[in-house]
């Protein structure tokens, strides 16, 4: 048998039907659902008189619209349209009999944090969600990708997705990371290398010593932004770290089933000599703490660099860079560490897990954020929030001057009341720096949690290594 990649193995294990031209029905093991991309899909089912094919494999949680301030059970905190959207999910979850974590549930949070936390996400699974950051679950060696609402309806009705196989891409990070460099810096550095379209048509497998050395939280951060590099899915082969994380979670297998699962999971790796259509290799030791300067996640530079000039680019990127510089209010040649920020956002499905919060606490412990700074920490789930309180992190944050919020997507995409105002500038641990992403004419610099913490203290984009 010819050697297979990890992606080949998971794909082969899930093809329910294949046509002669390769168009396949891929069976879906887990379907995650949130309130923004699902109402039209449920409505479609209702109109056609269809049921959810596998309600037991379908898990819903509201996250995009929900306020993160205390007292949010009060519907007055939401705008009318947000309220309607969350209420629609409440109703659809009940009517179609799917698993549901409502806003009032301690387990509620960002769908990509709740899935792994509850043990819904397991190695070797196919996972989809009407959300591009579904790539996050690839950290477990699960084939996970975002889909549109029509596909959400298709999966609800059939538990399959019509797919053609993608190409295989290997991203290897060799060696060790230097102090102050994190999973976020890896994933941004890779996008800086490949561009935001570099992964289009591929499934990425991340490997190499620096990836192996990452915790599960770090691996989720890396896979989360595979989509920002254009790849629908990112994968990391499961190992002892993975099994340790999964074991004992509410929906993980137990007893004899655990042993059977483990036996299969241990076969989930890329065979020696398996073919990759594209290979990118970065040296871990070369990666520095990075920051984005523009309005595309590919606009990445080490924090020690200066703002580039449009002439540094070629083709269509010249105009895009000029537009980005104007939007961001930056001048070519300006030192990145001279850029002042007025807002810091720590959270999101990229960096809203316990390890991220610990990294922030390490930087800000016993210190105060810059006067006038608006800095918020939004844990990724109610359980992350609870754990951070038990570990004493919340106290550190509050003493430093951070707002300590309830779980949700919050200012990552600003569909709830957490938004930037026109011209405000934010160091954010989220995943997109697009125009208007965090609020109309708001300016976003993507960074790691430690770098965001450093910026909160100094009021400028800061090399966290100088505070260590």
């Amino acid at each position, binding site marked *: 048998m010819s050697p297979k990649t990890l992606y080949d193995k998971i794909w082969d294990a899930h093809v329910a039907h294949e046509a002669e031209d390769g168009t396949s029905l891929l069976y879906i093991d887990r379907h995650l659902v949130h309130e923004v991309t699902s109402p*039209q899909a449920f409505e479609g089912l209702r109109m056609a008189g269809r049921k959810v094919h596998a309600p037991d494999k379908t898990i819903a949680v509201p996250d995009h619209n929900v306020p993160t301030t205390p007292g949010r059970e009060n519907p007055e905190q939401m705008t009318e349209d947000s309220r309607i959207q969350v209420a629609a999910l409440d109703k659809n979850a009940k009517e179609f009999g799917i698993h549901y974590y409502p806003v009032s549930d301690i387990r509620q949070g960002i769908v990509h944090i709740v899935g792994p936390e509850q043990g819904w996400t397991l190695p070797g699974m196919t996972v989809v969600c*009407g959300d591009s950051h579904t790539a996050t679950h690839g950290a477990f060696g699960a084939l996970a990708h975002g889909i549109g609402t029509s596909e959400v309806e298709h999966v609800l*009705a059939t538990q399959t997705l019509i797919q053609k196989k993608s190409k295989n891409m290997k991203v290897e990070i060799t060696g060790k990371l230097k102090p102050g460099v994190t999973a976020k810096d890896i994933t941004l550095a890779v996008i800086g290398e490949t561009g935001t379209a570099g992964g289009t048509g591929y499934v990425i497998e991340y490997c190499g010593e620096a990836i192996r050395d990452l915790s599960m939280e770090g691996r989720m951060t890396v896979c989360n932004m595979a989509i920002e590099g254009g790849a629908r899915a990112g994968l990391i082969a499961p190992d002892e770290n993975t099994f340790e994380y999964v074991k004992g979670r509410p929906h993980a297998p137990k007893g004899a089933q655990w042993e059977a699962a483990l036996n299969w999971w241990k076969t989930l790796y890329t065979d020696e000599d398996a073919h990759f259509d594209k290979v990118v290799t970065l040296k871990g030791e070369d990666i520095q703490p990075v920051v984005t300067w523009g309005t595309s996640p590919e606009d990445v530079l080490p924090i020690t660099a200066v703002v580039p000039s449009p002439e540094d680019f070629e083709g269509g990127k010249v105009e895009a860079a000029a537009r980005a510089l104007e939007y961001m209010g930056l001048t070519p040649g300006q030192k990145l560490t001279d850029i002042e920020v007025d807002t810091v956002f720590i959270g999101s499905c990229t960096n809203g897990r316990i390890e991220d919060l610990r990294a922030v606490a390490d930087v800000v412990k016993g210190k105060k954020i810059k006067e006038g700074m608006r800095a918020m920490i939004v844990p990724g789930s109610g359980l992350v929030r609870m754990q951070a309180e038990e570990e004493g992190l919340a106290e550190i944050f509050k003493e430093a001057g951070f707002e300590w919020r309830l779980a949700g997507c919050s200012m990552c995409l600003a569909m709830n009341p957490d938004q930037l105002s026109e011209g405000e500038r934010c160091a954010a641990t989220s995943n997109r720096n697009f125009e208007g992403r965090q609020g*109309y004419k708001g300016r976003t610099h993507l960074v790691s949690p430690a770098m965001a913490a450093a910026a909160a203290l100094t009021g400028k984009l800061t090399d966290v290594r100088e505070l260590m």
Partner: protein
Amino acid sequence: MDKFEKLQGIAAPMPLVNIDTDMIIPKVFLKTIKRSGLGVNLFDEMRYDRQGNELPEFVLNKPQYRNTEILVAGDNFGCGSSREHAPWAIKDFGIKCVISTSFADIFFNNCFKNGILPIVLPQEQVDMLMTDAEKGENARMTVDLEAQEITTSDGDVIAFEVDAFKKHCLLNGLDDIGLTLEKSASIDAFEAKAGQERPWV
């Protein structure tokens, strides 16, 4: 779904690269629970000022492009969020075909589910169509899906590739779910087998 067969219409140029789905339809319009009515907010932050007045320099606000049906766009069109509101807004505006050197995967798929034809062409051909589109309403391009050909206003013909299954569905306006349900037996058989092999799933 609406069929897509042959389209003759005005093409508008949008040469900017990396036009993301947040630009196509900003998040404030994602709070709808319907598929329709988003066309008025297509490219909202590029198209209107904060008071809702049209920005005259934006391409779709120019008189010659108000009835655009074809968009010729820069590389990596539709990147970012999976929101199908992006193709819904495009379709609702009246655009039925988008041409670029590349599209983000999820957006590309979403187009086909909504009767929109995304066409990928090499840079030189997109450049040529961009120049053609810049002629405004006098440049009516023709996109023939059956023949897989684009004809410019000058009569030049450019061939394009399209996946055979996706083409079949677009030409006939076929509903994916209906097609898949015809293969229910395969799905049931897969579930029975996978249930034995991986009972923990």
